[in-house]
């Protein structure tokens, strides 16, 4: 059995799955239930100054559903904790006492004044919590008051507030980044420059879910009016993975430990984050959709996967896929794949044909000798992977690497030599060898 224990910047937990700072970690009651279910850690829902903020009393959440009504995207307009600071601190202290083996990190969001940080940081550290997470990511509500994403979108502010926190804190400080930026690297570098021990990402994405088709107003609304929220859940995972990989593969930020967040709902999603450089992961939406019991699949799914791969710890997986991420200009333009349809698995739905015919390269037949039959035409196939993506039968269409002979489409011999855009003859700016 692989070892799932995790040491994230000195914060230890029995597994790499933490609950993210969010509604599921707002109270001792919930966090207790999570730890009873087996979660490795929790980041307490963001604390702010007293008096506490006020939340709306109408819809705070809404969902993007798949056709079978699975939640694939999720939106919220809930702000940070609306409970008095003292109540939260007492509960945090008690939880850490009751669950000494679990990671308990406290998320905080404070105004951009050094004295406020100096006042609250020691008070919170006194609870016995294992670390801070600085919420520079919430894109709704608090950002209008100059906090959350309003800080996270300005690298100078990130660095400044991180420095203030580090001055008063003796426990690790994790900076949580907003994805509502065009380039994640400057915020990550700023966190590092401010002394952050790690970054966590992503926070939620600015979003409006939809319109109410009866009233033709935004949906959902509070007394007829709506405000943008933060988007999360499975649908944001690819966005988050890209940002995680960027930090992992950039030499200035590569050493910065990452806690991966965004759309993790089963162990495979966790593998994505870990392999792309995150050292642990945080989860919220999946728990809010299915409850805390999902931890069972997360932990033993990951453990079985590591066993299969012959890895004895989570650490061995971390960053394994990072070397495979590069810029487009470095992709080998001499490499050729073509789709292949397994006729034994094919159910003759013809989806591959129609999408290739209508929107791509007319590279899949619809008939053979007058009979319904779907087969790749190598002379037309550019290897785009569209048919693989739309085929309803897993494994029926696969991409096959052509290693020698002639590419039937171009008529050119398959070259063993790699050539990328930087050296390609069609590139007027190519590097001369």
């Amino acid at each position, binding site marked *: 059995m692989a070892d799932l224990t995790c040491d994230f910047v000195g914060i230890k937990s029995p597994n790499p799955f933490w609950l993210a700072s969010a509604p599921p970690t707002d109270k001792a009651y919930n966090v207790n239930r999570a730890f009873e279910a087996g979660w490795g850690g929790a980041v307490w829902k963001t604390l702010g100054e007293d008096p506490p903020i006020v939340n709306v009393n109408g819809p705070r959440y809404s969902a993007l559903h798949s056709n079978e009504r699975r939640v694939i995207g999720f939106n919220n307009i809930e702000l940070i904790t609306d409970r008095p600071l003292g109540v939260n601190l007492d509960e945090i202290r008690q939880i850490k006492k009751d669950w000494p083996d679990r990671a308990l990190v406290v998320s905080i969001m404070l105004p951009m004044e050094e004295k406020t940080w100096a006042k609250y940081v020691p008070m919170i550290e006194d609870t016995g919590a294992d670390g801070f997470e600085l919420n520079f990511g919430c894109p709704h509500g608090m950002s209008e008051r100059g906090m959350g994403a309003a800080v996270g979108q300005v690298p100078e502010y990130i660095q400044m507030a991180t420095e203030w926190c580090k001055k008063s804190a003796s426990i690790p400080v994790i900076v949580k980044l907003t994805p509502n930026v065009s380039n994640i690297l400057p915020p990550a570098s700023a966190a590092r420059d401010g002394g952050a021990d790690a970054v966590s990402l992503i926070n939620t994405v600015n979003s409006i879910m939809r319109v109410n088709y009866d009233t033709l107003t935004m949906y959902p609304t509070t007394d007829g009016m709506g405000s943008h929220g933060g988007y999360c859940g499975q649908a944001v995972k690819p966005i988050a993975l890209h940002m995680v990989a960027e930090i992992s593969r950039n030499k200035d930020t590569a050493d910065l430990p990452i806690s991966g967040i965004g759309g993790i709902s089963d162990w495979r999603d966790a593998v994505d984050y870990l392999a792309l450089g995150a050292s642990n992961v945080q989860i919220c939406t999946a728990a809010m959709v299915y409850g805390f019991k999902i931890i069972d699949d997360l932990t033993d799914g990951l453990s079985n996967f590591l066993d299969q791969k012959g890895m004895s710890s989570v650490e061995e997986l971390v960053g394994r896929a990072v070397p495979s991420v590069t810029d487009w200009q470095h992709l080998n333009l001499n490499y050729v794949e073509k789709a292949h349809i397994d006729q034994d698995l094919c*159910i003759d739905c013809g*989806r591959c044909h129609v999408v290739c015919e209508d929107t791509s390269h007319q590279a899949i037949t619809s008939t053979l000798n007058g009979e319904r039959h779907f087969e790749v035409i190598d002379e037309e196939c550019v290897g785009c992977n569209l048919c693989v993506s739309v085929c*309803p039968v897993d494994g029926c269409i696969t991409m096959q690497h052509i290693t020698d002979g002639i590419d039937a489409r171009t008529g050119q011999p398959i070259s063993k030599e790699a050539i990328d855009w930087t050296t390609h003859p069609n590139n007027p700016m190519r590097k001369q060898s």
Partner: protein
Amino acid sequence: MPKDNKAAIRSGRLSDEEIARNFSDMHPPLGRPEALIAADRCYFCFDAPCTTACPTGIDIPGFIQKIRSDNITGSAHTILRENIMGGMCARVCPTEVLCEEACVRHTHEDKPVNIGLLQRYATDPVLDKNITLFERGPESGKRIAIVGGGPAGLSCAHRLSMLGHASVVFNRDEKPGGLNEYGIAAYKTVNDFAQREVEYILSIGGIEVRNNVSLGEDFKLSDLQGEFDAIFVGFGLGSVNELGLANEDAEGVLNAVDYIAELRQAKNKGNLPVGDRIVVIGGGMTAIDIAVQTKRLGAEHVDIVYRRGPEQMGASRYEQEFAQTSGVNISHWAKPTKLLTAEQRVVGLEFERTALDKDGKVTGTGESYSLNADIVFKAIGQSVSEETLGAVSGTLDMQSGKIVTDDCRKTSLPGVWAGGDCVYGHDDLTVSAVQDGKIAAIAIDKYLREESNNG
């Protein structure tokens, strides 16, 4: 000795509640949550095999896609523009041998998309809310006579109206609808659905229905030729095939179709008399419908006897199983040889076991057995009635007692088209009759327009 069975034939065998339960909707409609789950299973195939398998060519993935997006009116339009009786067909089509058999879901899981019930889900609201989906085309001034008020005739009339022509439907029954009204098991079409559908079809306008008039008895084909610009005949099969045994006129030997019609029209089904022991001869849908319905009226023993095996039965495997799980016994490979009677009443039947000879023909084995019966139902097929046949034979090319048409449903007589069960080579399905009417209407329209242009 057969017992005195006159007393065995009686009504009121079951309570009103039992009758109501036994004749309630065979497949209750899908609710929205179920429909969305069922719709989501559709793969939206290219050149979909289900559509190819549908005799009316409904764009099935198209209408299912619209269910998924809650575009129910659009979904209904996709169905009804190809098959104006899409509502009835959703109830009576043997989908298990048509669209659902062709579903690609069979390849890996043997569970097709539930197309029939989805079609009902999409079309029911159109009738319930009387949503107008089709309008009469600009009036052409042409009038078409339609002989027969069943699915073929009504489908033809509706399409002609869409194309701007007027029509008069000559219907032999009291109500229009044909077999939809008189020939289908009651639990397949509850709440007077057939008449509601007919009303919806007629609401397009331009269609006059004359009931209680029969070709051959009340009028001749030639009467129509002068008065109308074209004629469509879809008079169905008016007479029941005989067993060819002695004593077939004995009391208790009945035509299944007559009893099915009576059941459909009965205000209180429990009042219909039924025997203790029923024997049904035949292997098609009519045999299944009469057997199951008499069982549900409270008959104690119901036997279907068919001269060949289950694969050759006209009723689908699903229908056979439905009968069997309804308590009907199906015996194969036996043919009736003698009707047993006492005091001019049937009391039983003798059968000879059958087998295939070396040429693949059914032949008696010499081995025999008998069954007691209070009522024997004949359900071995129907044919064009003598009177109707007399009115058309000699005028129209016929084969095996049915009308010969071309692909456009044109007969040998200029200006006359035909469709439905009375046409040679027809498969006796409602959906095919609807398609015949539609194709004929399109052909008639083309003919009339060309004629106007030339004239």
